[in-house]
């Protein structure tokens, strides 16, 4: 087996056992990036020199038997909307071209403390607004399983890199499914933590009340490991919970015997692809075989989720993106007369179409006279959606459903139909609106050979249980071992 096909936990064992040197691993990794990424296009920037320096340092530590961190020597890719000190962070937007943050995001600090190696910054839909990574101002990332297809989005660069074995792990971010949906489409594991589980400090905000950073990995155990590192209280984020972080690997093999699995009727209706339905049904059978009890549940307000999401997320985005004005950093238009023209032209030229569309929608929803009808109403419906989950979680341990209604679609297929594109996130958005955690794991392939994701949702701060349920399935199947031909 080639070195780069191993999981992070496997490679860590080899590094610690001095079977391989981190610097050799990094060398091999960049060689593969140079070979494969011209096709996949997952990276916006590589961090090669710093990665080699870090690798040498870790090799030195290990050679000297100095204690190393939990992620010692593990190469990690970072979605390019997470601030990295000294490395350009662009949000795949022209408006932040060459923007170099003066500080590290909380999660980056944690990765460095645990001796992870940051190998590069990955592509995304501009400002994480999209479900296909086609909205990037720099490049279109391709699905490693079929280069004519999208990887999903907005964390498509991160999930494609992990699927292509050019990153052992990655960080993504979610506002409405941006980790789980591309994880499903690329055949990797992606987890969105409970809102408040991971600090947002340093994540360039899209929808502040929805955003979460989460892990992307090759399997459930690696996901658990990465979550253990990035979760926890941060004094720089007031919305981050002061709740202890368990070792998510501990007890992960506890199985699902006696667990009650809820299947929401609303998630199996019109628009669900037959291949996806078949794969999810098969997965449910496996859970039944493993001793879980499958029960039908209802989340009656599901149909409003997408509408509520696009009001809340865009309203917050319109405000969060106001700071990109050309005054202090980022792109500034040339030859402008006066401050108003500078604002107007810098933003018109700096932002892409989808971002501009959402800023306009958001500003509209917050305008005086419309606030009550849109933002306030949406906030109320959002509470009803949350209540739906509160109710069902009184009776069940988890919800199992598809992650995405369809497998990866072709590049260009949906770009001119924003509404259809927005529906890609129909099964993932409710978790963001209600703050609950969710994970997507590989559960099969479509007839065309494209990966299909299974989604597991639990109540807030039950990531440990969620990972245990995910692992029970993974242990029984080998979908996660599949590799794309590149």
């Amino acid at each position, binding site marked *: 087996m080639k070195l780069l096909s191993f999981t992070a936990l496997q490679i860590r064992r080899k590094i610690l056992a001095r079977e391989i040197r981190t610097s050799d691993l990094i060398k091999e990794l960049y060689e593969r990036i140079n070979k494969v990424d011209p096709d996949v296009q997952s990276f916006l920037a590589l961090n090669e020199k710093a990665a080699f320096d870090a690798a040498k340092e870790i090799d030195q530590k290990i050679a000297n038997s100095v204690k190393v961190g939990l992620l010692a020597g593990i190469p990690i890719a970072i979605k390019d909307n*997470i*601030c990295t000190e000294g490395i350009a*962070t662009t*949000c795949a937007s022209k408006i*932040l071209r060459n*923007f170099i*943050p*003066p*500080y590290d*995001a909380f999660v980056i600090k944690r990765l460095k403390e645990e001796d992870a190696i940051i190998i590069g910054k990955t592509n995304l839909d501009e400002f994480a607004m999209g479900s296909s990574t086609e909205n990037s101002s720099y490049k279109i990332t391709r699905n490693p399983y079929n280069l004519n297809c999208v990887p999903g989005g907005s964390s498509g660069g991160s999930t494609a890199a992990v699927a292509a074995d050019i990153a052992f792990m990655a960080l993504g971010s979610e506002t409405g499914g941006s980790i789980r949906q591309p994880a499903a489409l690329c055949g990797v594991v992606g987890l969105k933590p409970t809102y408040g589980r991971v600090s*947002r*400090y*340093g*994540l*360039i*905000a899209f*929808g*502040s*009340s929805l955003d979460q950073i989460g892990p992307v990995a090759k399997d459930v155990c690696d996901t658990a490991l990465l979550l253990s590192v990035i979760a926890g209280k941060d*004094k*720089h*984020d*007031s*919305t981050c919970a002061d709740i202890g972080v368990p070792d998510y690997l501990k007890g992960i093999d506890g199985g699902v015997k006696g667990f009650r699995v809820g299947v929401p009727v609303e998630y199996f209706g019109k628009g669900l692809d037959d291949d996806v339905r078949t794969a999810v049904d098969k997965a449910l059978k496996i859970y039944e075989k493993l001793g879980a009890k499958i029960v039908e549940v209802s989340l009656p307000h599901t149909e409003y989720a997408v509408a509520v999401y696009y009001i809340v997320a865009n*309203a*917050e985005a*319109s*405000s969060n993106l*106001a*700071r*990109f*004005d050309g*005054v*202090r*950093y980022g792109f500034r238009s040339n030859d402008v007369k006066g*401050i108003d023209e500078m*604002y107007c032209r810098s933003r018109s030229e700096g932002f892409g179409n989808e971002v501009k569309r959402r800023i306009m929608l958001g*500003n509209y929803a*917050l*305008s*005086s006279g419309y*606030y009550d009808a849109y*933002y306030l109403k949406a906030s109320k419906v959002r509470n009803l959606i949350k209540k739906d989950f509160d109710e069902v979680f009184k009776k069940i341990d988890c919800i199992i459903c598809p992650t995405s209604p369809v497998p990866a679609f072709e590049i260009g297929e949906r770009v001119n139909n924003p509404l259809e594109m927005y529906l890609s996130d129909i099964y993932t958005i409710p978790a963001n609106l209600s703050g609950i955690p969710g994970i997507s794991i590989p559960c099969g392939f479509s007839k065309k050979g494209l990966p299909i994701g299974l989604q597991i949702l639990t109540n807030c701060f039950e990531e440990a249980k969620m990972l245990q349920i995910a692992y029970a399935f993974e242990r029984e199947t080998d979908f996660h071992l599949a590799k794309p031909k590149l």
Partner: protein
Amino acid sequence: MDYEVVIGLETHAELSTITKLFCGCSTKFGAEPNTQVCPVCLGMPGVLPVVNKKAFEYALKAAIALNCTINRYTNFDRKSYYYPDLPKNYQISQNYYNLGIDGYMTIEVNNVIKKIRMHNVHLEEEAGKLIHPENAGADYSLVDFNRAGVPLLEIVSCPDMRNATEVESYMHALKKILLYTGISDCKMQEGSLRFEASISLRKIGEEKLGNRVEMKNLNSMKSVLKAIEYETSRQSELLDRGEKIERETRLWDEIRERSVRMRSKEEAQDYRYFPEPDLLPFVIDEKWICSIQETIPELPLERKQRFVETFQLSDYDAGLLIEDKILADFFEECLKEVNLPKVFCNWIINDLLREVKEKKLDITSLKIKPDQLASLVIMIDKGTISNTIAKEVFSEMIDTGKEPKAIVEEKKLVQISDEGQISEILDKVIASNPNAIEDYKKGKKNALAFLMGQVMKESKGKANPKVVNELLKSKLEG
């Protein structure tokens, strides 16, 4: 025609916290531009605000001191507008659940007490400062973000004031409350206290309010009053001519002493307020409110009334004492040593304030201590030193902070009351001033004063005037 002027005031006060409202940067005034900044107050991508508890506490303190109802459930909102001094292009402020609502403050105008209602008191962040280059034709402006993020308290009064005198009284009274509670240094020249006025006119007897004009750029209390006078006559002239007053925002032009239109109601900004998602709503603990309540000192107006009633001070004198909390505290500390309110009041409002003014002293760091002034007063009372000497000693106490006793001993200033000693001096003076003796015998009364002066001079001011007076008379008559 006669109109009634209706005035409301919006006050912005920077709170005296050591650090900014949402980050750890210093709030110290006057530093080099952009040296007190960090990613948070510069609005860098990805940063988040964390509330400064002290600032929140100060705002609560103000709301309680202004008799507001405290919104137990409160949060912050984003107020959106584009301006280069506003790093995020939204200001974190409060709109939907203000910290304090429905309060009031009492003011005193011509011995009449009047209640001015408070619409709301809320907390927000300060903006930065634009610096426009002096050379004409420069095609750029600079921004200093040192002030950006300093905690700012906004106090919005109801339109309860009817003339400039009431407004003046309101501004002074509010400033005193902020100083008494110690939540702002209220330095108008540094911009830590600012006012905006809304002014409207209506026919006397009419209930309905006229269209109001909001007046900005008022840099001092004086300009507030001038602007009100100007606006009153501008609006009444318009109304007299049968024209309508437009609802608008106007800027006060300090140099030309007139107001100019900034924007009309139609051009008014839509601030698109919505709850700040980066900060969770607060539920304020009743216990916290109580503990803050306990830290609020007696407020100026109540204190003045107590001084008048308890110490029989005149309204004017008591007013001077409470003008500054430090003075009033000094006064009460003196009384703890010896209960001579009128004596201490005179020392403070005459001598102390004169020395402070002449020597340009900072009242917050006086060297003289209340118990020292009390010792001085006791020494006068006992006849150890004369009043004249006491003034000299007092001046030295102000300069050095030394005990009066030490100064008196050091300079040998103890009063001479011994008749034998005084008699010797008198004989000397009488002998060398035969003309004055002549004048006295002719009945010229001021000759006595002249001789007294000579005696005091000869004794270097130490002779006890009472004894001198008696002895001198008996010597001259006898």
